[in-house]
């Protein structure tokens, strides 16, 4: 039957990974110490990368580990170190409206449940090896994505690099001390 993505051992692996990812996400939101939050977020990223590998998305899984776990989390930990406050002035973790948020939050679950119950997703027949194929040539997942990135999606690729350049310049400018006077 179509619509089944994983069976057997991969199915159980997905269940284990999903439980770990959700547990780590809850720990990120609930932990008092931001270093603990950062480490749990790192664990969540690694586990979701594992789920990507289960879904035959090897290149996005590797990019997730390299960029998110290896880049962004290191940046977070550096900034936590830079703005470390020796005394914890307030013992409260959550803002004062946390109970209102907890009550109003589940309202968003209702439209989602409706979609889950009634939406019939397109019954597309599964093409084996489709995530490794470009135009009926079988290659690796990375090569197939490279074909797409450098031919069909070349413009978004270049725009993304310009955006990263702008973000880098912006981060440097924002991080400078404001007490310098320009002559």
């Amino acid at each position: 039957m179509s619509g089944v993505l994983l069976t057997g051992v991969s199915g159980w692996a997905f269940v284990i990974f999903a439980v770990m990812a959700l547990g780590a996400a809850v720990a990120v939101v609930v932990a008092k110490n931001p270093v603990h939050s950062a480490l749990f977020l790192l664990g969540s990223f690694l586990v979701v990368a594992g789920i990507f590998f289960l879904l035959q998305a090897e290149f996005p899984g590797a990019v997730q580990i390299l960029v998110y776990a290896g880049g962004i989390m290191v940046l977070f930990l550096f900034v936590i170190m830079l703005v470390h406050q020796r005394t914890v002035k307030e013992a409260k973790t959550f803002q004062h409206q946390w109970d209102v948020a907890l009550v109003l939050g589940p309202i968003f679950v209702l439209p989602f449940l409706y979609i889950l119950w009634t939406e019939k997703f397109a019954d597309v027949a599964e093409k084996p090896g489709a995530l490794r194929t470009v135009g009926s040539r079988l290659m690796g997942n990375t090569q197939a994505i490279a074909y797409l990135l450098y031919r069909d999606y070349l413009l978004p690729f270049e725009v993304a690099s310009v955006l990263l350049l702008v973000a880098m310049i912006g981060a440097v400018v924002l991080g400078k001390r404001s007490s310098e006077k320009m002559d």
Partner: protein
Amino acid sequence: MTITINHFLVVSFLLFAIGFFGVLVRRNFLTLLMSIELMLNAVNLNLIAFSRRLSDLTGQVFSIFVITIAAGEAAIGLALTISLFRQRRTLNVEEADALKG
């Protein structure tokens, strides 16, 4: 254990909801940024799951761009954190409530 697309939808929605709750409720600005990264991660999971479901590589290319944008946004957010800390000596978002420069 048979996993269908619905399981992936539920997991990605729950991840998104946890991150959403974290953005609304956390005091520490750094943890707020981390919750935003959680939400982006949930969206990526959704994209990759549908890419596998529809046998289409577009979802994976999209998710690579999402990761790129998330990296840029994390860098800017962290620079803003440092700037906020220099101005107010606090990371508490409830104390950053004046629009005065």
